[in-house]
């Protein structure tokens, strides 16, 4: 299973903080397309992706146990 974390507007849009999903061997891009199809996640387009707390590309391949966080444009400071 992949553990997906949602923050800020992604959390508001989906009503969820996290989603568990079968995605062993998927790319980040495939995961995004699946989530866009299943949830109301328009903001995913402009989000960055972190895999296990490091920024990752759309073609990063995911493995069971990975934590994927979608990171809307940040606004700290």
């Amino acid at each position, binding site marked *: 299973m992949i553990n997906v*974390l949602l*923050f*800020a*507007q992604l959390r*508001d849009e989906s009503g969820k903080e996290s989603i568990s999903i079968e995605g062993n061997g998927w790319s*980040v*891009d495939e995961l995004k397309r699946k989530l866009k199809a299943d949830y109301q996640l328009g*903001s995913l*387009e*402009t*989000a*960055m*992706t*972190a895999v296990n*707390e*490091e*920024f*990752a*590309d*759309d073609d*990063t391949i995911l493995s069971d146990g990975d934590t994927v*966080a979608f*990171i*809307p*444009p*940040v*606004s*700290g*400071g």
Partner: protein
Amino acid sequence: MNYKISKDPIVIQEVIDKVVKRNAGAVTTFIGTVREMTKGKKTLFLIYEAYEPMAIKKLEQIGAEIKERWPEAETAITHRVGKLDITDIAVVIAVSTPHRNDAYEANRYAIERIKEIVPIWKKEHWEDGETWVGNQLETLPYPSGKPKEMDIHD
């Protein structure tokens, strides 16, 4: 513990104390507070949310980047999360260096980097609604899914 996400109010002096050294002649601090008016719109309060373990890693990364550019600099950063009222402190950055120019430059570098790579989000509560600020004009999207090297290193 120079890099911290805090649910409690930030005590500025505690952040400064982390960077004072016998050979630091200059300490700069940046204190980001909640401003009431933004482009004529009135903020009532803010909510800050963080992806905490990654936010701490990214603050540490900023400290390491500073160390690479200004080897004698010491850096400490605390960012608040939760509900903040007008004039509450959202972030304190303290940097010490032997000479003052570096202390200003390195401090400014830290706040710019925080706004680029640290997973913290601000929800503005206005008189007439609420918005996640990152969704607005202030930050560019990253179409590739992650910040480019250029974004990270310059």
